[in-house]
């Protein structure tokens, strides 16, 4: 039974996403294109990038994460305040893409729990907006579906 309060909270959180753009590589260019006036992500209330994990709700991991960058990603994820979500932007974050070598983390879900995967190298802005809508749907019915607000980080990975 969805209480009116849960619904209201879900609605409020859904349309006020403060995103932390953890930009590393080529997907950053597509992130810029999505955030700017042509494909405008501000229409969905997610237009304000916050560069400090304290003020951010959603961690947009954009671009390849190398093994040297992995501890930084984990630390920033853990320093974010609940409720927090993680979006894997681009195939390098979903599965490591075609950089299957000694330097690349093959998929950031081995480090931080991920909510939405946006494949594509780089994903077209329309894919990104679609991923954002799926994230908003997840945020909306977050409380009533009994999901925990943020997926528990796996104990064996937290540093």
């Amino acid at each position, binding site marked *: 039974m969805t209480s009116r309060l849960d619904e209201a909270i879900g609605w409020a959180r859904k349309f006020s996403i403060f995103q932390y753009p953890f930009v590393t590589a080529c997907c950053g260019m597509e992130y810029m294109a999505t955030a700017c006036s042509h494909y405008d992500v501000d229409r969905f209330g997610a237009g304000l990038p916050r560069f400090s994990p304290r003020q951010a709700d959603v961690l947009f991991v954009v671009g390849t994460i190398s093994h040297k960058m992995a501890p930084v990603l984990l630390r920033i994820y*853990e320093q974010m305040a609940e409720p927090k979500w993680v979006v894997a932007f681009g195939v390098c974050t979903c599965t490591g893409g075609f950089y299957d070598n000694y330097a690349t983390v093959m998929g950031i879900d081995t480090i931080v729990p991920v909510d939405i995967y946006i494949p594509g190298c780089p994903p077209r802005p329309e894919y990104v907006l679609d991923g954002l809508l799926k994230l908003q749907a997840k945020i909306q019915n977050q409380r009533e579906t009994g999901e925990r607000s943020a997926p528990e980080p796996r104990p064996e990975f*937290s*540093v």
Partner: protein
Amino acid sequence: MTEYLGILVFFALAATVAGGFVLLASILGPKKPSKVKSEPFETGVPSFGIQAGHLSIKFYLTAILFILFDVELVFLYPWAVVFRELGGWGLTGMSIFLGILMVGFFYAWDNGALDWK
């Protein structure tokens, strides 16, 4: 006494709105404190921390100048509200006050207190 009622209502309203948000956030927001979360955020790496008490003198200089001219500004507000009733006297009084501070400002400017080097 009644004209102060307006300000009272204003302050009460402000307090309830601000307090309400803080209260709601603390009640509804989940709280999961963790060791890493309490450490200062310095761009993703453990921070060096700021050695207490050894800041450069130039910060102090800039701060003092700011306070000085900020307080001067505070005196202008009440004057601006009633300057029409004060007529000529009010204007001369305030311009003397501002003149003295301007002299101080130019002295500071000339001595290079404003540029950082």
